[in-house]
């Protein structure tokens, strides 16, 4: 079961979307994906292997990402994941949905007394 939101954790249900986004930029291996999410979020999100790997398996099963074995930057065999076409579609849809929600939440949070 995925953990609830906690410091350093990812908001529940968004990990798949973040992985898809990362892979939309370029294909990458498991460790790299984790690092990239951490980097881009400036250390706010730390994803551990325990959440990453089940997510990879899940996304792969759903056909949203594909994998192949390749040599890594330091010449080791690594499993690289890449986003598929249906993965891109799915990501766009989810991102759109997410943005709408964020905007809505933000509006509510910043509402003044008069508006409510």
């Amino acid at each position: 079961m995925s953990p609830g939101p906690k410091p350093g954790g990812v908001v529940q249900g968004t990990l798949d979307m973040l992985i898809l986004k990362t892979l939309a930029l370029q294909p990458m291996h498991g460790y790299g994906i984790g690092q990239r999410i951490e980097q881009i979020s400036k250390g706010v999100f730390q994803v551990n292997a325990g959440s990453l790997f089940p997510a990879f398996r899940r996304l792969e099963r759903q056909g949203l990402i594909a994998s192949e074995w390749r040599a890594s930057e330091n010449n080791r065999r690594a499993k690289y994941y890449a986003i598929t076409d249906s993965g891109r579609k799915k990501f766009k849809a989810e991102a759109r949905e997410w943005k709408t929600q964020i905007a809505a939440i933000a509006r509510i949070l910043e509402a003044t007394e008069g508006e409510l």
Partner: protein
Amino acid sequence: MSVLKVIGSGLRALFHKQQEERELDEELRAYVESAAEEKMRIGMSREDAWRAARVETGGLEGLKEDVRDVGWEVALESFVQDLRYGLRMLRKNPGFTAIAVLALALGIGANTAMFSVIEAVLLRPLPYNDAKELVRVDSTWERGGIMTTYSSSPPDFFDWRDQSRSFASMFAYHMGENALTGRGDAKRMRTVMATAEMFATLLVRPALGRGFVAEENRKGANHVVVLSHALWRAEFGGAADALGKTIEMDSEPYTIIGVMPDGFQFPLTGSDAYVPIGFDEKVMTQRGAHYLHVLARLRTGVSVAQANEDLGGIMAELRRLYPDKDGKWGVHADRWSSALVGDIRPALLVLLGAVGLVMLIACANISNLLVARAAVRRRELAMRRALGAGRLRLVRQMMTEGLLLAVFAGGASLLLAHWALVSIISFGPKDIPRIDNVELNTAVLMFTLAISVVSALLFGLVPALRSSAPEVSGLVKSAVWSSREAGRARNALLIAEVALSMMLLAGAGLLIRSFIGLRSLSPGFDPSGVLTLNVGVPDAHYKNSSALQSYWDELLAQLRGLPGVTSAGLVNELPMSGDDFSSSFRVEGRTVPEKDEPSAELRAATPDYFRTLVIPLKKGRMFTDADRLGGARVLLASETAARMFFPGGDAIGQKLRFGARGGYEVNQGEVVGIVGDVHYFGVDAPVPPMFYVALAQAGLDGVSVVIRTTGSPAALGLLSRKVIQGIDRDALVSEATPFEEMVAGALGQRRFYMMLLGTFAALALVLAAVGLYGVISYSVTQRTQEIGIRMALGAARKEVLAMVMRQGLGFAAAGLAVGLVMAMMLNRALKGLLVGVSTTDPLTLVVTATVLLLVAVLACYVPARRATRVDPMVALRFE
């Protein structure tokens, strides 16, 4: 994403499992490597970097398990794995498995058998089209707040049929027994005499030919017959040209107008032929002649309550119009399906409850065994947890093992249930409708499956949750079971087991006591060594009553001549045969309004009837052979009748006139003697007031014969039949039955309930004993070390024995106490089944408690003795 894709990827994964596993391993290794390298890059030492990377990644086995859990195929796969593993565990512990499966199979088997009885008797729809709309309409008579239902009279039936608006159709019928004559030896037929609306009401049409028409209801016009499919096949080989032919019934010709469809049976057990009822002018005016059964089909949308209101209104008007005949009568309609099982339903439901308790005991038992075994398996389970199995996975594993046990037990139980049903069909009481239809059909099998699964949940969940509790590290180190809480749960289960068994035992004890009481009650006559059979002769062969009488005289004379026969007598309706015939009467010299006239049972009997059954003469004189047609009409009164109607003790010499005839001839006479009371309707029913007319003055064409023999009654049967048919070939002779069997049969339902509850209680007792034995044995094993130390320190064997026994009997006593209280509260449910025993009968409670205690002592003694054989040296080295 398409479902196909999901299934496809799952299947691929199943077949490429090893490759996938390898890849996952490699991928994870690469991940840790990358993490370590990253850390070294920022300046950590190689060693520290690797350690940190491993910690960061977490337990790899657990992680892999999580990844594996993603696809659907994993659930299936792990279930198969659990199954295999479970099977291995069960095989490894054959003793445990055998006991658990046997205990469960007994519980499930008993429940399956009981449910199949309920299914056949209470739940299965009656075998007619749209049978749920069929209602039975009875005449009722309220006396002392108790409503008794009776059959109905023809005029009442016609008024109900014509005036009510609640029914689509209504018909009346009565059963007849005829001789199929003119085709070799006379054969007995069960015949339904019905009004023409039978076919419309039952929504059935003859497969061949036609049903009756209204004109054929009249006597004289009714010499037509619709054959049952079976009789048609037997007598006409299923030939279509049987239509229009005639058959002879009681030596009279009937034209075959139809054949019923295959499988049609009415009433429930079926009959051989259907004949129009044949009302004559006289009977159409006899409102007091209650002999018809009435069935009706509710109009669509009409409820039973509405129908009763409708009928009640009609009956109120009839009471007003005919105060003398209908003054005391009411009417009541009930769905046929529930009217059939009126007082049987509550009894069966009580038994279902009892057998459910047996199931609970069995579950508690298995649960205890599993908890004890889980203790043994603690190390194994802890190991699996440490290796990455989630708690859910462990619970699933344990539940799968429970399910396996339940499935095996369910299978075995079907065998037990099958045997139970075979004996229910052959020994079950004949007066529970459709009891011989019990079978292991789909509904019953579904029930078995359901209770197997539910029982697995019941007994499996507690041990599964307990033993998968997360205390990994401590448990790996030590496999010693030390949880007090678990012990408490086990003890509570054990006490509950004993308590439930106590309750069932007490209930069974009460039924047995009540039954023994009933058995020891004298029915008022001596049935041992007496053979009975029914004889009917065709009216057409005998011109008048005296011709009939000579036939009976000849019959008695020949029977008395048979070897071993000491006396033979005749009566028109036997005690305990279920027949009744009551009539209102008027006492000469007393003037009471007709509606207040007393009524009593009326029989016709020969002098030797009383001698044969040993019914004593109390006062006055017996019938003699001189009391014949043409002589003065005489009556005998039973003691109850004499006391009830002539409290002054002046019964003898009174002249009575009955509303109905005590035969074709007699409806009046003078009381000449008083005879002993007879429990005509069974020893569990009140003794009815009874008058007898002399059979020789009655001119009957059908009687029951009672023959007392010094030999075996059964052996005499065939011979008697031969003799009787030798006098008149067309005479109809029933199977001969030893009277003792009939008397026992009258208690058949009670015996059945008693045997069932007794069996359930015995099962409960065995299960409780096994449970007690198991827990005490287990505790002795656990305490081997302690016992060893005690003995090393000088404790005597006797003291050890006492210590263990104390523990076991403590549980038993606690269970007993709880059980006694529950028995006193809940056995009230048995009230309707008990005669002459209170539901808290102290003797029964004491005896059953003693039995339970003795069994408990035995169950504890065996393991306690084992405890005394503990060798201190071995015990101290234990562990």
